[in-house]
């Protein structure tokens, strides 16, 4: 713990077929299945995102799989404690590649509001355990923020943004 560890995991295939890869990535980006893995408060907002008002299904990511073996993306929604850390790593390793991680909320990013001197039970950021692709800040982030995070992940996969960027309000 403490030191940022380096993950020596190859995320890409060894042999590349340019056009086929593009097509595969496009398909993957439009069907990112998250894992049903709520840790804390953010999990409730994650549920809200999946429900009718915000409708995660528009982006092809509504199928929450309870089993890690059927999931593409792990949304770490909540505080990761030291007791939970080994389990989280196990779950991550059980996911078949290619796999991605979204760190949702301040706890998963850095420990958030529960960080203080001499703390004894907190993992200060889930990126100490698993490689993270997208960080979604907030305590808890609004569902719109999580949707934006998902779009960012799609952008990472396909190289271009699927929807126009919303206009800034101020």
């Amino acid at each position, binding site marked *: 713990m403490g030191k940022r560890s380096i993950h020596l995991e190859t995320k890409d295939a060894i042999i590349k077929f340019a056009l086929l890869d593009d097509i595969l990535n496009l398909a993957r980006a439009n069907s990112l299945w998250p894992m049903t893995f709520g840790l804390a408060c953010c999990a409730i*907002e994650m549920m809200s995102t999946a*429900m009718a008002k915000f409708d995660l299904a528009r982006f092809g990511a509504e199928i929450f799989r309870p089993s890690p073996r059927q999931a593409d993306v792990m949304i770490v929604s909540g505080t990761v*404690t030291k007791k939970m850390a080994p389990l989280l790593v196990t779950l991550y390793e059980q996911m078949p590649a290619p796999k991605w991680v979204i760190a949702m909320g301040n706890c998963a990013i850095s420990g958030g509001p529960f960080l203080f001197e001499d703390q*004894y039970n907190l993992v200060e950021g889930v990126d100490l355990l698993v490689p993270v692709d997208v960080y979604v800040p907030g305590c808890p982030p*609004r569902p719109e923020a999580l949707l934006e995070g998902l779009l960012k992940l799609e952008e990472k996969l396909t190289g271009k943004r699927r929807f126009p960027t919303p206009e800034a309000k101020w």
Partner: protein
Amino acid sequence: MVTDILEKLKTTIGAAEISEVSYEERGYHISVAASKETLHNVIKFFDDRKFYFEDMLCVDYKDYLEVVYFFNNYRFLCRVKVTLKVDPANPHVATMSGIFDGAAWYEREIHEFFGVVFDGHPNMGYLFLHDGIEFYPLRKGKVRIPPEDRERLAYFKVDEQEDAFTVNFGPQHPSTHGVLRVVVKMNGEYVEAAEPVLGYLHRMQEKMGENRGFMQFLPNTSRMDYLGPMSFNAAYVSAVEKLCKISVPERANIIRAITIELNRISSHLLWLGAYLADLGGLTPFLYVFDDREQINDILERITGSRLTYCYMRFGGLYNDVDEKFIEGTRAFIARMYDRLKMYDTLVTKNVIFINRTKGIGILDEEGARKYGFSGPVLRSVGVPYDIRKTEPYAAYGRINFDVPIGKSGDVLDRYMVRVHDMEVSMKIIKQSLDMLSDGPYVAEKVPKKMKPVAGDVYQAAESPRGEVGVYIVSDGTDTPYRMHWRVPSFSNLIIFPYLAPGTLIADAISILGSLDLCIPEIDR
């Protein structure tokens, strides 16, 4: 009644120091300082008089440790604090789990965080913490865990047996509503034993209470129970107001009641959806979230957040409500009545649902007393006990409502009590909106730095899950010396290992879901 108890106590147990305390200032009526010799008799005395086990905690006063027990009664309000001084060099106390079964888990918790050993306790293993903790977390100063205690705390091990197999239920399981882990020992399709393992979300809230100011701790209360944060807000704020003698304006009290009840409805709705999803009906989940979003929109306008509200301030509120909020709330209530009718036809009259819930997980009042569970779980056995009635906080003292109770204490009753609870909440909101008058929404001259009097205070409130209590010990500085939370889910979960054996695994899940657990609250 309080004087009667006091007299009887003095005649029965002469050796202990017994004193009457001002309830308005402290939140409890009688304080008993027991010694090691008298403790058993004192607790037996309250057990004989049908008191229920409310809370148990420990405070480190540097020179000595103090184990504190709280008892209260369902029939009349009489909260009793029993204290026992323990030598920190040799912390041994006789266990009370023989008299009040619920104490067993509280004792395990105290043992982990303070190192007090309870002699005669059946199981002293880890409950919350992980292996690798070097110091007792809640002791002042760094006290190392001695090696013999480490062995006692040794990691939870599943005992192997012939023809029985264990199933790990959780921590990543949709039915555990978060990160609860239950190790279930199965014999074929039947549960033989269930052992919950907690602490996967232990976020050190009580430790944070000791190193943050009174004001700085406010946001933590809403992270503790993210489904019903308003009640936790109210409990904490009321406790500090009691401690610092701040009076709250009328308008603020009424708005507090409205927001707490709105939050209660949204919490019960989420429970309804999640519980039916546990039983295999996924459709209600979509419906309840539709209603929840309405409440979120109403509350977001005034509190600024969708989920973890931090709306209350010492002596009032963060923000005033406006006409739009009142109109929105009225519209929501009108709509909610129709929705409840719809839930009634869709769920309550559903044959499959009734068959899955009727006659399993039966509880009784005696069990409630011994285990100390509260809220809808308690009211389902027919005890009309509600903190909003017995110890009115916010504006509940002036509102006319009745407490829904069940008859048989089974899972279906718990469901019905919660559904009726929503109707009661709507009634309360309606009355409060009519009572709303102009005036200030925050008390004047609330100091930035709190100046509490030295002493302790206990404040209870009714959260959607049951009785939440805050116990704050103050030493006169602007940070609490010790803060303890009595959380309803923890007490409600204690009965699961007692209910589960002998049931089918599907029924066990139904029972677990009906307790309405909120894991961050259990783990704190």
